[in-house]
Every structure is written in structure tokens, then in C-alpha cells.
């Protein structure tokens, strides 16, 4: 089959690789109909996530048709399913608590040593996202092997087209969980850093959950425009001092909840604030390989958040961060909630919202490409982020 594979920093290619096979009883094989490039795939593309090997198949947002099932899979051939990016067994302590991304059993034993050493305990398995999270082949391919197929995939009705439901795999539940983690109360102002797809869904979710006001922060005019179209007030950090604006817009107290939908490759390369100056240092260290994470957005969010407020972090981090404003976090008494999304917890509820047309999921798709054009998609999603807001790959499309 054809699949998008990793060959090094900024070098991804579509190669011919062996077809996946059923290995374990609960497996299923899915024929991919739609698969997206995620903002977090750009962390892999930029080479800032360790343990990505040459030839690894990327992609963790995908859906398709069931073509083969293991003897303990509950799926049926021909069903249309969306597959969560988190692989979860459904029966360990974490899964029982609906903390699906913390699954004990989905990361293969030999691969667990790495994150056990890095983080204290091994993390759960994810599709196409380095050998730290299991080394599973991803879904930017014609076919994919889906382990624990009786737990993750959600069957979607035929009347809902791919583009409407595809994002149940990751970014919609991720934006939703980000808003849930912000524990929104009546009258709250929620500030969201980053108007990428997760930030946009966080904006929509926060408003859906009753936020009085959502303020979205980015520097790409078109992405800010999308946030505005979904009801957010917007701040362009290239023209505005974000910290001052947030304080002035909230009567001097700061936002009640802050959401970092940026993660480890934060922008903000200027000397105009404490947070940005630290980000310059992070960037240099990340470039020369002595620091993993860049935390400009996160620091600014912590500085801006009101005393006793909530910090929600859907953005991806993988290593260590210096100059973390721990004093501000503690002295202001902020609550922190973060983590890879517990996708399976939200898919049913969100599918209902889509079916009832209560949440718009297609407006952010800027490009639909064939699988063969995936490298072009990566390049532009990174270099032309203003216009390329979300790329969906369709193996059935003819190459451009």
C-alpha cells in the first residue's frame, strides 16, 4: 500500500510499504477514506519529538471502512468508523476511570521503558506518534491496523459525510476537553492561545459550555478571522500587547481560565514581554538540541490568568522547560489540567452535537489533497499557516 513515511526533519515521503495485517484478536483493518494532518504532526515534521524512526508511518486523525476483523473485534466489515488517536484497552484501571489516554496496556512492553525513564510511568499508545507512544503505524496511508478495535472506533451514520465526522478522531474532542478542563462558570472570560484547529474547537466548545466571552490569540489574520466567525474576540500578538489587552478587557483581573492550544513550538520572537524574552532563549536551545520545549504561550497564559483561575493545556509538550513561572502558578493559586485527550470519553456526545448541527466542524478545512500529495500538505501547513488551516488527505483523490 501507499503511506506517508518519516525520513527526517522536514522530509516526509509517500512510499510503498507492506499492507497491515490482523495480529491480535481484537484488531481490525481499516481502509482509510479520510485522514488529516494534525498541528501536532508538525512537531514530528520539525524533528522536536524524539524516537521517530525513518520509515515510520505518520498520521493519527483518520476514518474509513472496516475491511477485516480479528475474532474478538466487535466491528463488522463494511462499517464506517472514525478511530480515536489514543489507543485504549478499555479494561485497565485508567480506562475504567475513563482516562483513556492513560491506558496501561496499549503501549507495547518493550517501548514502555523509554517513557518510564522520561516521565516516571509509561504513557499510553497513540497512532503514528513516535516510538515513545508505542511506535504504531499511523493512518496517513491506504490501510491501518487498529488494535482494541472493540473499544476505540465509533461507527458513524452514512448520512454524515467524512468531513463532518473526521475530527472526532482528535481535534474536536481535544478542543472540547480543553474547554471542559477550563471548568467554565457563569460570567467567565476564557482566553485561548493559538487559533489552529484545536484552538478553534476550544473557542466553539467554551462558548457552547457557557463562557461569557472568549478571547482568541494568534498572529495569522485568517486564523483570527475564523475564530472571530465562531464568536471569539481576537487579539493579534503582532500588533497588540496581549498581557495588557487581557487585563484591560477584564477589569484588571485577567481571564478566569486560560487555554494553551499552542504547545512546544510557540512563536513570539520578540523582546516585548517577559514571556517572549524567555521564548527566544527556548527557541535557541531547541534549535541546538539542548532544550525540548518552547513555552512562550504557556508562560504568557500563566502571567495573564486571574488569581485562583484555571490553566488548561491541550498543547503538546514532550520534555523539559526552563524558566517556568512556577511562582506565579503557586502564588496565584492556579488550577492546572492537561493531558492527551481521553477521546473515547467524548465521541458519542460529540457525534450527537454534529448530527444535530450544533457544532460546525468543516469550516476550518482549507485543503483536500490526495494521499500522494501529503508532503505538499505538510510543507504548506507549516510554511503557509495563515491560508492552510487544515489539510485533509483522501486516498481516493487523484494527485494534483
Amino acid at each position, binding site marked *: 500500500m501507499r503511506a506517508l513515511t518519516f525520513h527526517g526533519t522536514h522530509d516526509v515521503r509517500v512510499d510503498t510499504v507492506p499492507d497491515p*495485517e490482523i495480529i491480535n*484478536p481484537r484488531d481490525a483493518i481499516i481502509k482509510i477514506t479520510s485522514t488529516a494532518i494534525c498541528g501536532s504532526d508538525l512537531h514530528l515534521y520539525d524533528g522536536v519529538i524524539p524516537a521517530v524512526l525513518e520509515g515510520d508511518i505518520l498520521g493519527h486523525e483518520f476514518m474509513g471502512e472496516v475491511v477485516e476483523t480479528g475474532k474478538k473485534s466487535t466491528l463488522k466489515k463494511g462499517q464506517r468508523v472514525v478511530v480515536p488517536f489514543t489507543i485504549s484497552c478499555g*479494561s485497565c484501571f485508567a480506562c475504567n476511570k475513563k482516562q483513556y489516554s492513560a491506558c496501561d496496556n496499549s503501549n507495547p512492553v518493550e517501548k514502555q521503558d523509554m517513557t518510564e525513564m522520561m516521565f516516571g510511568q509509561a504513557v499510553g499508545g497513540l497512532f503514528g506518534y513516535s516510538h515513545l507512544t*508505542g511506535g*504504531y503505524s499511523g493512518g496517513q496511508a491506504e490501510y491501518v491496523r487498529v488494535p482494541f478495535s472493540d473499544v476505540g472506533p465509533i461507527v458513524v451514520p452514512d448520512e454524515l459525510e467524512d468531513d463532518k465526522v473526521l475530527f472526532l478522531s482528535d481535534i474536536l474532542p481535544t478542543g472540547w476537553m480543553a474547554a471542559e478542563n477550563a471548568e467554565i462558570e457563569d460570567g467567565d472570560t476564557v482566553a485561548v492561545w493559538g487559533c489552529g484547529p484545536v484552538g478553534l474547537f476550544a473557542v466553539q466548545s467554551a462558548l457552547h459550555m457557557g463562557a461569557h466571552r472568549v478571547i482568541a490569540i494568534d498572529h495569522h489574520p485568517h486564523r483570527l478571522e475564523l475564530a472571530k466567525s465562531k464568536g471569539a474576540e481576537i487579539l493579534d500578538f503582532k500588533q497588540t500587547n496581549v498581557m495588557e489587552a487581557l487585563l484591560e478587557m477584564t477589569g484588571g483581573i485577567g481571564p478566569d481560565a486560560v487555554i494553551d492550544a499552542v504547545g512546544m513550538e510557540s512563536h513570539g520572537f520578540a523582546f516585548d514581554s517577559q514571556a517572549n524574552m524567555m521564548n527566544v532563549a527556548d527557541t535557541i536551545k531547541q534549535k541546538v538540541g539542548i532544550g525540548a520545549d518552547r513555552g512562550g504561550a504557556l508562560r504568557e497564559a500563566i502571567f495573564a490568568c486571574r488569581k485562583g483561575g484555571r490553566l488548561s493545556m491541550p498543547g503538546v509538550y514532550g520534555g523539559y522547560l526552563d524558566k517556568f513561572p512556577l511562582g506565579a502558578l503557586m502564588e496565584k493559586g492556579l488550577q492546572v489540567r492537561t493531558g492527551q485527550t481521553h477521546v473515547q470519553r467524548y465521541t458519542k456526545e460529540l457525534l450527537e452535537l454534529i448530527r444535530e448541527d450544533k457544532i460546525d466542524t468543516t469550516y476550518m478545512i482549507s485543503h483536500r489533497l490526495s494521499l500522494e500529495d501529503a508532503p505538499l500538505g505538510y510543507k504548506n501547513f507549516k510554511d503557509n499557516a495563515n491560508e492552510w488551516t487544515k489539510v485533509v488527505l483522501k486516498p481516493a483523490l487523484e494527485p494534483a
Partner: protein
Amino acid sequence: MSHYDERRPYSEYDTDDYDADYDTDWNELDWSDEHARSSRVATGTALALGAAGIALAAVAVGVYRHKAEIANRPADSAPDRAAKDMHRSDGKAVAGKTVLINRPRVELFKFWENYDNLQQFMKNVEHVETQGDKSIWKIAAPAGQSVTVETELVERRENELLSWKSTANSQIETEGHIAFRDAPAGRGTYVEAVVQYKPPVGQFGRMIAKLFRREPGVQARHELKRFKMLMETGEIATSHHYIHDDV
């Protein structure tokens, strides 16, 4: 005059008599005298060596006192294998690991007691054969080698504990146990495996084995995790993409 008197302000202290004792005028020393210089160098070297010796002795005393201090501490709640100093006086190493398995104790005990089941999750066990209370194990060792161990059952407590030790017919000396305890609030069972063993060629052998990931501590950890996967999910997770994929 320089005695401390709390009633007197600091500024009134006379510090001259203190300074006088250390008053050396370095300009008056004769630096041009070769003999005097070499003797000063020799004295300096001797002093430096002496200082290094004293420092080393201080470190040795420090380590000794630290060990003595630890030995005299009241015991804490940690299992033995979590001790910072893993060396045991009889030359045996202790490896152990506990996992939480979301299944009833009785079911886990029953599965484990049937040694035919063990090969399903023990990757390093190449072969097991049981005769009465004795079992013969062929276990993978570093560099493609294997070792044979004959064990005998030392204790069996239904649904709680199995312990064993190696007999004279074994290539390595080992003993151990597997224990099953209820976890609180319906979380399932804590399963603990502890293996004591004499490393093949002492500490060095242990280090090499660890490099090859066959060290019993690593083996115990990996095998218990596979046991957990098998019991909780009915299968052992793999990210292989197709059956003969060896990545």
C-alpha cells in the same frame, strides 16, 4: 577588647589586634632566592598532597558515617528492593516488581499456577517442564545463550503466594516468590514478583546482562507487564504492522 559584648555596638569593636596576627608584608619576602623558591615549592606540594589526603580521608569517614547512619535508621515502609544500596552481603541481587491487575486474585493465581500458561507472556522462558514439585526451566540469557534452572516449590498458599528456589541441578542460584494481594476499592489485585539471584559472573555479569535486557529485574518488569496485558485485555499489545514485522 575584642570579646563579644552584646551591650556594645559593633562599631566600637577594636579589630586592630585581630589583624596584627596575620599581618604579613608580602613585598618583604625574597622571591629572587632560587633555593628558597624550590623549598617553597616542595613545601607547597607536600601541603597540597597532605590536604588531598585529608580530604580523601574526610570523604571516606563521611561515607562510613553515612552508611552507619543509614544502618541505624528505623525501618520505613518500603519493600527491601527499593533500598538505595542494592548489594546484599551474600552476593545475591534482588529484583522485584509489583503491578496492579484489574482482575480477581483467584483468577490470577489459578492462571499463574498452571506453568503451561507462563510461556504465553514470559518471552525469555524457552521451555518449562514440570515433574511434581520440581520444574525445569530453559531461560534465554545474553548473547544468544540460555541457562537451565531447576526449581522446587518451597511454599504454596492458595490464592496468595507461590515461592520457589533453585536446586543443585541449576546453572544459576535463584529463589523467589509471586504474591497476590487484593487491591483496595475493587481495583483488582497487586501482583508482586521477587527474584533473588546470584549473577553469573558477579556484578559485571549483571551489568552485561542488563545491557542485553536479560537482567532478571528487567525481565521481571517486562514479564509482569505482559501478564497484566494478557489478563486485562486477553492479548499482548504489539505495534507490529504485519505478522512478520520485526521493528
